[in-house]
């Protein structure tokens, strides 16, 4: 929900980690961020279409699926013009269950996991997610900026929980660096403040994540023994367990 915390990287890397647990063909990622950057993480060059265009044409999302070399099926946002984006957002605003319906129609994630990346802040995309998701992962940095956004997020989540009380939301700390005093203290504070709503595994700050993106690979492939990969695998295990509960 907050910008610049590594949402897109985490979505891509976590999807690769879950796929390494579940096997090929069972994990999909949907890019609902107009920046259209998610497919970059999987080394996909030129997607013919995207979820935006397919939705406007009222086509099947299955045609937007692009297989990647890392066992993850990617649905990019698509390269679109400004009017097209606005038209898509209007469409989404009119029909809050559009996303869920489209995924179901295309048969995506029937026997697996779909990870959806959203743009920061409240938006029509976020509203769609709230309507159909099983679990919401809120990526945070252990810094003052992230800490200051928590009240706003909590109030959104409070509103949502009136509509969907069973929806689970969990905070995931990204770029943890316990060597920095501020980072350590904020992490401690968040743990005290939010308790069990912070995921038991945080992702360590690791240059390998940035380097992996430069190489257009998930970090699990780029540096399988790095701490970030290690954390992501554990996070994937935890996520699968939580979803199965």
């Amino acid at each position: 929900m907050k910008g610049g915390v590594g949402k897109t990287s985490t979505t891509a890397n976590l999807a690769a980690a879950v796929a390494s647990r579940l096997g090929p063909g069972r994990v999909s990622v949907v890019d609902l961020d107009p920046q259209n950057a998610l497919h970059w993480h999987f080394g996909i060059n030129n997607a013919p279409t995207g979820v935006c265009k397919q939705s406007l044409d009222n086509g099947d999302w299955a045609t937007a699926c692009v297989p990647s070399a890392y066992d993850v099926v990617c649905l990019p946002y698509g390269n679109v013009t400004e009017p097209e984006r606005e038209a898509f957002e209007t469409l989404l605003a009119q029909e809050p269950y559009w996303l869920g319906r489209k995924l179901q129609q295309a048969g995506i994630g029937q026997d697996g996991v779909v990870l959806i990346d959203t743009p920061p802040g409240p938006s029509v995309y976020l509203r769609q997610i709230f309507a159909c998701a099983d679990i919401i992962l809120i990526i945070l940095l252990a810094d003052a900026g992230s800490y200051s956004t928590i009240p706003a997020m909590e109030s959104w989540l409070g509103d949502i929980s009136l509509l969907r009380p069973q929806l689970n939301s969990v905070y995931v700390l990204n770029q943890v660096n316990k060597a920095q005093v501020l980072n350590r203290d904020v992490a401690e504070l968040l743990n005290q403040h939010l308790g069990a709503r912070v995921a038991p595994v945080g992702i360590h700050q690791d240059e390998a994540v940035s380097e992996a993106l430069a190489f257009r690979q998930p970090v699990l492939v780029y540096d399988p023994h790095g701490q970030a990969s290690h954390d992501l695998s554990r996070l994937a295990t935890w996520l699968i367990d939580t979803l199965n509960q």
Partner: protein
Amino acid sequence: MNPQLILSLWRERWGKTEDKVFKVPYLQGRPNLWSESLLDAWAWSLPGVAVASALLCAFLLALVVSLELSLNSQIVFSVVIVGISLYLRRYGGGFFTLVMLGLSFIASARYLYWRFGSTLSQESDMALVLGFGLCLAELYLWLLTLVNLLGNAYPLKRSPLPLPADRAQWPSIDVLIPCHDHSRVSNELAVKAALALDWPQEKIKIFLLEDCPSDATRALATASNVVCLGYSDNPAGKAGSINQALRDTKSEWVVILEGDSAPSKDFLTRVAGWCVSDAKLGMLHTAHHFLVPAPSTRSLDLFQSPALSGSCAMLRRSMLAEIGGVTQEPVTEQAHTALKLQAAGYGHACIGFAKIENPSPNPNPSPSPSPSPPHQMPGVDPRTPAPLEVFRVDHPFSGNTLRHRQRLAFLQEMLQFYYPVVRLIFFTAPLAYLLAGVNIIQTSAGLLAAYALPHLVQGYMAQARLRGNTRFPLRAELWQTLLALYLLVPTAITALRTKFSQWISAFKSQEIAKDDAFDGLVAWPYAIVLGLNLTGFMAGMFQFFASGSERHGLALFYLLWAGYNFLLLVAMLAVAEESRHIRGHIRRQSQLPATLRLPSGRYISCSTRNFPENCLALTPRVPVMLKAGTAVNVSIFLDYREFVFPAQVASDQENVLWITIESAMQTSYRALATAVFSRGPDWPQWLPAQDADHPFPAWLKNSFNAVRIRTFDAIKRLGKIPNLAVLGGWRKNKKKIK
């Protein structure tokens, strides 16, 4: 220690539910009920019944032992008692242990009676002399086994007593740490552990002892705010300086900690309950081990033997002063001090829970998983010549206040010391026939088997029942035999002159220092015996084929015996050839998950190898190739918490990265070490599977089970089992309705 026990401990430690599969493999069934009702019978309370039944039993025993049976009857008799034992050994409880001991006694007594009565040569010749010697050796072994079994029949199972709620009643304690011959690091950790002990601050004082204290010791004392006592005018060794320190300290109780030991945090609170509740108690030991319970089971036995291997004890000052302090002269002061306390009428006890941190085998230099003897062998005491020495110096049988069972304990120890000689007799006995043609057991092979087999099988089962949980009987046999000759020299010297004890002590430490000396020393006599056995075996083979068929049985018997010796000796030589298991670190070391931050900003996941050493070794998941002096950050994880320390690479070789923690962070690093190790013992006081025995190796049990399951499968396919299952189910239901 077996995997099942470890798993069971692990489950208990982390509060996992006890799966039925992992339960102690003893049954609780109808025989248990019978035994209870027999023991609780009202008839026992009538006057004279106990004496009368004891007399009756003694009479019956004499009858059974002396009964002469034909070959067939003896076979039936053997099958019956072995069968009873095999049936009863599945049931738990002390009663069945005693029954098995009784059956073993009967089988062995019958065998020996028959051996002395019917198998010796009728003429006074070489065969009589040698045969009689062999019989005596067997008698000796039987006595030794008997005393051992008696001592272990009823483990005392002492557990910690609670302390009074009122802290004012807790005794005051002086902790003495003799630093003689220990490294600075181990002394430091001992002091840290002593400082971390749970006890009211005003009631505990810590003292470092050393002859002519070194600067390092003084600095350590100053840094940790403890008192350093040094007696440069009279360097009297460890015991001497303890006695001198006793004059300068005042508290009610004295705890003596070796410089290389580190008690767990709750050591005092768990131990001192006994001290408060029993006013006659003069000395208290705890087990001196972490994972291997065997060496100290002796201290828990019925005889209350003084713990010979434990060097950490809690002593009452007044009683210690009365007997003149810690004994100085002999090699093992603990045993003598305990004996003097016992002789003065005071109590001595050992509590069976682990106190000292794991003297863990160092993962680094040892290529072979099994340790080689002699000094840190799990399962078998190195048996320093202490008891024999006790026998000569202190004469426990003439001390008038010693209790009978305490005397028995010393008898047991003494008997153990002639073991080497007896072993040698067994190894060379078949040679008399094979090489010289002297038949030392004059009987038929069939009769010998009918008498000897139940004697051996019963003895083995009884041993397994009592000790099998901590020792694998066959393996213990190998180790003991290997030690036998090694101990022959010190035993002989001790038996002759006690004054040489100092020399033996020096000899021992020299042996520890020199790496290869032991193996060579032990191996060559066995190589000679092995050569003799091999020659005998060849000669026997020649005779077997050369002689007529009427002597085949006899020759075969001796050939088998020599073959068995041969196997045992080869196994022993193999053990002696094993590389020495070097314990590089006396302290428990932890493999904690860690992560290493490289200068490039990348993080590598790894684990620690020797935490809490100052020079920390890490195993990264991938080779990292760092130059010495590179600054890195290492994070160590404890549960979900992460602790970061800046460090410098010391060396990077063969996928082990050695780093030194920055000196500014040493304090926090030590604090983390304390946090990791200050937990109470992970192990419960009486281990859950402590009573389990393992007379059969696992592969035998598994293959038996496999055959059984296959057979059932086959029958099931024939369609018979469904009926049986229905029948079984019906029976069960019927029982439930009752």
